[in-house]
């Protein structure tokens, strides 16, 4: 069974309901859908927005490579990755990742793997817009994220 793959890089907001439904489009041996949504945070009121820059030519290709790794590793019936760029306000969804499989362990593992790899491999960068109206710093990558990605033991 070929997996149903959705990869979208877009400025527009995504509709969680629609995306989740698409993952569970009827087929009899779907057993488990895991989803993850990453939101823009205000960091305790410090931020007014996050601006996401991306590398348009590469983002789509790189996410496709990460999705292909997930498909090789776990028996998935559907995978969706939607990543936004542009200016996000606190509470806005930035990324949606969803996986469908027959069993829960595979759906969870693939979903978490995809998120870990998006964090460290997908060419997106966040810049802070401060609540006081000034432009802040570029968000620094976390060592934690590299550790999280490394536990899957796939070379980058």
């Amino acid at each position, binding site marked *: 069974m070929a997996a149903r793959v959705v990869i979208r890089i877009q400025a527009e907001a995504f509709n969680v309901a629609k995306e989740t439904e698409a993952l569970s489009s009827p087929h009899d041996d779907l057993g488990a859908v895991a989803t993850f949504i990453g939101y823009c945070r205000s960091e305790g009121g410090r931020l007014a927005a996050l601006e996401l*820059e991306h*590398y348009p030519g590469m983002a789509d290709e790189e996410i496709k490579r990460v999705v292909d790794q997930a498909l090789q590793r776990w028996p998935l019936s559907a995978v969706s990755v939607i990543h936004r760029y542009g200016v996000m306000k606190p509470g806005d969804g930035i990324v949606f990742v969803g996986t469908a499989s027959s069993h829960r362990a595979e759906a969870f593992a693939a979903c978490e793997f995809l998120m870990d790899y*998006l964090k460290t491999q997908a*060419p997106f*960068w966040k810049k802070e817009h401060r609540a006081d109206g000034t432009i802040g710093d570029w968000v620094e990558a976390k060592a934690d994220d590299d550790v999280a990605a490394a536990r899957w033991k796939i070379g980058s």
Partner: protein
Amino acid sequence: MIIFVPAFAMWLKRMTEIKIAYFAWVRERVGVADELVTIPSSVVTIEDLARWLSARDEGYASAFENPKLVRAAIDRVHAKPHDMIGNAREIAFFPPMTGG
């Protein structure tokens, strides 16, 4: 005797001209989002290219001052400092990614 062939000269020129793209604070420090650059034959690896660009002016020097903080891609695939540029058409430099 050397015969000058214009078409051949143009082909040679295209071979060494490459697009370089910059993102996030690397882009801000360099001052441009992308540019076409003719690189000398001594520039073989990503690391060479970063060093060569650093010599251009203060902006480039600042972008590459800590090479550990700059990542690269060759033709839209993640690359390491020792990877060879070869016949690549597009090189990109950027900070560690912070998407997701």
